[in-house]
């Protein structure tokens, strides 16, 4: 019998065709599935108008909060939006989108995303875990296969935007997505204003050059915490701020005042963006409502659509949309 993994079709051999061994058949089936997935990824790429990656160099800067916020702010404009939560080891988008404990629907080998607030479609590893306390301990190749399955085997339908939420750092997840999903518009880098986060976001910006994916801009999260209060009308109010600073405000005729405390620092995201010549998309306020909303499964943008956080998100989305190349816009002629 031949060593070839394919069945032999000899014209005049007079022998019955040699059959592939079970192992060879399995290899062929895997190769076929991989080929089908690649074709499917290309098809999905065409049906999703814009794909935006959300990354950060450092953990804990609010990347998933920004991803879900961007998705919901886009959905508020009436656009069809999906979120792909690639954070395999710590998936928390479903909880923020009110989809905790939901299971995915699979039909004819295709995965159907769950639908969260404002009709945003969500795919996350969290949907596949039996117990949310169980850690996912996967080596690179298994992770890579799962990501490709999340891209190629999901029935997204037609979408205006797909927001892809990554784990922190410059690991192989963004690389896999950038190589698997065609025509990614670019990446949004989330940072907080302190030096250690800015240092890591600089790495993310440099990383984008290696991936050949443009940086759409930097978002500074947890930028400042605004306190509103009342005191005697037309008087000066003093508050002890961080680093021994005294913050002052003057009340209006009704006695209302407002002071913004820069809990970490201020302007770091903007200066990093300027340093690297990439756009600054805006700053999002420090809002404890995100924590409560995340825990309760009701996103801040949904619970308070006219609130300061929702307004800040819509400004960031506006800046993001201005950076995205619209195929219908007159483009630059390069000769």
């Amino acid at each position, binding site marked *: 019998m031949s060593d070839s993994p394919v069945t032999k079709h000899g014209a005049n051999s007079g022998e019955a065709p040699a059959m592939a061994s079970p192992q060879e058949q399995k290899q062929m089936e895997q190769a076929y599935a991989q080929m089908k997935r690649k074709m499917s990824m290309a098809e999905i790429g065409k049906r999703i108008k814009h794909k935006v990656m959300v990354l950060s160099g450092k953990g804990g800067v609010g990347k998933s909060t920004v991803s879900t916020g961007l998705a919901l702010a886009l959905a508020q404009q009436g656009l069809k939006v999906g979120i792909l939560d690639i954070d395999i080891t710590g998936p928390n988008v479903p909880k923020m989108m009110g989809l905790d404990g939901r299971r995915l629907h699979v039909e004819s080998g295709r995965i159907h995303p769950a639908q969260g607030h404002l009709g945003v479609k969500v795919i996350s590893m969290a949907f596949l875990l039996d117990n949310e306390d169980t850690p996912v301990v996967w080596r690179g190749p298994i992770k890579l296969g799962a990501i490709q399955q999340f891209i190629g085997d999901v029935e997204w339908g037609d979408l205006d935007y797909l927001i892809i939420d990554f784990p922190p750092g410059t690991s192989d997840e963004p690389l896999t997505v950038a190589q698997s999903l065609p025509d990614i518009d670019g990446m949004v880098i989330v940072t907080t204003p302190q030096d250690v986060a800015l*240092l890591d976001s*600089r790495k993310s910006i440099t990383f984008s050059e290696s991936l050949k994916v443009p940086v759409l801009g930097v978002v500074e999260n947890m930028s400042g915490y605004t306190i509103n209060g009342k005191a005697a009308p037309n008087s000066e109010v003093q508050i002890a701020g961080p680093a021994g600073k005294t913050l002052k405000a003057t009340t209006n005729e009704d006695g209302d005042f407002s002071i913004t405390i820069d809990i970490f620092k201020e302007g770091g995201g903007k200066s990093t963006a300027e340093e690297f010549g990439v756009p600054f998309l805006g700053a999002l306020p420090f809002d404890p409502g995100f924590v409560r909303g995340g825990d309760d499964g009701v996103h801040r943008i949904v619970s308070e659509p006219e609130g300061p956080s929702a307004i800040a998100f819509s400004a960031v989305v506006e800046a993001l949309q201005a950076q*995205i190349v619209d195929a219908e816009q007159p483009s630059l002629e390069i000769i």
Partner: protein
Amino acid sequence: MSEDMPRLTRFERRDVDVALTYENGEEYNVTYDDLRHACPCAKCSPLRNEDESSKTLRRQIEALPKEKPQVRTVGNYALGFEWSTGCSSGIYRFERIWDLANRRDPDNGRPYVHGAW
């Protein structure tokens, strides 16, 4: 950043320079040497901080073979150039190209300070 910068509509690569046409019909030329010398990447930028290293960078660029670069758009805010020799890392914002077209220093005289990588 130039608030009144018109939109770049045409980028024509010629033998030793590029002809730029803006939406308002104005046309400008920027030599490839000027373009490459203004590379905003983290390797080239610090070399422009000092006159001597800037001149050395310029001489190195001028010694490279003259070639037309591959051009790619970066988002809708910048262009990237791929050269077969020398540095291809820089992302040129349209404002930077506009400054070069108008013979202005695209760094606005500010020295480049390295990121902390």
